[in-house]
């Protein structure tokens, strides 16, 4: 197992170097002078121009610039935002809990609904229940989630007035962040109604962000269950006279879940891509919206740093999924 983890880590190093290279190249690939491009309509004084040339090291040879950049990254220096003048890493740390909270809620929703839906569809294979569930899953999988979010806002926020349209909590409440997770912080603050306000703000964005992972998990669970239900040990369990619930819930599902766990882990990329759209629609102050805003404001150090951090998180989660998969299924360790 140890050598398996080492091998996986070994594969990660060239990818990490590649990712840093892409992030490094990003600013240098901008058409024309990168500093003029970053300044955009704001313009830049000759003095500030020189400062920025030195800050980015554009006056040095390319390879040296890359090594300087890499050294900075390894020391946690991801540059400074042009608009806020704050370190990119500090901004990311402030905003990431919002994205994480939303992603966790979304994945809980996707797993809680997706796995039972997949199991029921597999057990009732070919029936109208199966067709309805898998039809719904395919609609979810094909959903333009930015439109789905707008529809939910029209109906639940506009027509019924049940949920707020944007933000993380009502402006009536204010408390300093402790964990960064609004649900937890609102409880800690002890302010009456704060938790309900935070929860009501989370509902629609979570549904929107969960839509595609939910569909993927339901489809994957169904096909994994179908494969397992045909196995000899399931037949044996059935012929022993075990209750159908035990056969499906314990014998079949436990084995079918192995590939599903991998699928759930791989949804992190889908969640981060979805966060870009979901956070934009709901004005959710997380890293997705931060990145989109940075692209529009031409705050390229933020785009560069954010790109690297998000890719880094995805790589680490994928590694953990791989290792977890190695634990559950010893055959892949070879």
């Amino acid at each position: 197992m140890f050598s398996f983890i080492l091998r996986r880590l070994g594969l990660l190093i060239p990818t990490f170097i590649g990712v840093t290279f892409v992030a490094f190249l990003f600013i240098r690939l901008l058409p024309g002078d990168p500093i003029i491009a970053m300044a955009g309509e704001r313009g830049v004084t000759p003095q500030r121009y020189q400062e920025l040339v030195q800050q980015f090291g554009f006056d040095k040879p390319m390879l040296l610039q890359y090594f300087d950049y890499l050294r900075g990254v390894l020391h946690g220096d991801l540059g400074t935002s042009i608009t806020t003048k704050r370190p990119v890493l500090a901004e990311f740390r402030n905003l990431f809990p919002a994205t994480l909270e939303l992603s966790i809620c979304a994945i809980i929703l996707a797993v809680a609904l997706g796995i039972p839906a997949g199991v029921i569809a597999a057990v009732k294979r070919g029936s109208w229940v199966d067709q309805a569930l898998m039809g719904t899953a395919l609609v979810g999988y094909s959903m333009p989630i930015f439109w789905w979010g707008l529809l939910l806002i029209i109906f639940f926020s506009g027509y019924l007035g049940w949920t707020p349209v944007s933000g993380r909590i009502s402006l009536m409440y204010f408390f300093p962040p402790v964990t960064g997770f609004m649900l937890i912080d609102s409880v800690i603050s002890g302010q009456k109604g704060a938790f309900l306000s935070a929860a009501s703000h989370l509902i629609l964005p979570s549904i929107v962000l969960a839509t595609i992972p939910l569909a993927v998990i339901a489809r994957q669970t169904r096909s994994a269950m179908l494969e397992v239900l045909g196995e000899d040990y399931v037949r044996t369990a059935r012929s022993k006279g075990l209750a159908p619930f035990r056969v499906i819930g314990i014998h079949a599902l436990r084995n079918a879940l192995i590939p599903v766990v991998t699928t759930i882990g791989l949804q992190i990329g889908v969640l981060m891509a979805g966060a870009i759209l979901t956070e934009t629609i709901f004005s959710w102050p997380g890293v997705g919206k931060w990145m989109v805003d940075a692209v529009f404001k031409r705050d390229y150090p933020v785009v560069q740093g954010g790109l690297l951090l998000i890719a880094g998180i995805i790589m680490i989660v994928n590694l953990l999924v791989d290792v977890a998969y190695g634990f559950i299924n010893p055959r892949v360790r070879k």
Partner: protein
Amino acid sequence: MTDATDIKLKQQSGLGEFWYYFTRSKGAVIGLFVFALVVLIAIFAPLISPHMPDVQNQSMILQPPAWMNGGNGAFLLGTDAVGRDILSRLIYGSRFSLFIGVVVVAIAVASGVIIGLIAGYVGGWLDAAIMRVMDVILAFPSLLLALVLVAILGPGLMNAMIAIALVDLPHFVRLTRAAVMTEKNKDYVVGSRVAGAGWARLMFITILPNCLAPLIVQATLAFSAAILDAAALGFLGMGAQPPTPEWGTMLAEAREFIQRAWWVVTFPGLAILITVLAINLMGDGLRDALDPKLKRS
């Protein structure tokens, strides 16, 4: 399956067999029908569209659909904030969506297959280098990478398509490489090599046709994903630019009216959903028809 069907199947050509399995899935047939309809709408857009997509009618701003109170029969699905007919814009928009799908898949398949063939056939350090580059592309969320690439290249439909194709590339490279690696040591390839076939012939004529099944399925999925991603970029203001009647761009323009004119938001999204759903239904049918493992289940 009965013996009679078995015998009938054996007599059919490969295409016939494929069609038999494809049409066994009702969803796939519905998907194919809807997709064909969208293609026809795109081709005959100037003939069937009641208005020109970019003609503004200042006296008809935000007209509701014809069946609603205050609706106007001349604008079946209503008008947008500058009085343009939504139905006509949707009809013309189908051209953009299909065009995006075709261009993205063409770029991604052509380059992905060539790179994958080289990686799988040549092997060694070149293979390792290519695969690490693909890993790097896969390490980024697709939409984020596409967004950043468009930021570099500049907003616009063509740049959005190039960015999406690049993001899709690793899937085709990986699939082709894996298929080539299974095929390249099989007897028919070795035989062909012994008979004196050159590397280009071996790669493109001997091996490639035998790796096509998974590529076709992936291309279908990439087609629908490209439409979704391009619409998402359009929605974020980084894809096709107004006044292009691209469905995602239409949604972006409609956002500020969601509280008072639901139709400007609802119909473009519905058009995206129906088209993407139809293609995905076809993709599921294609996978079932082309995957021999599933055929027996």
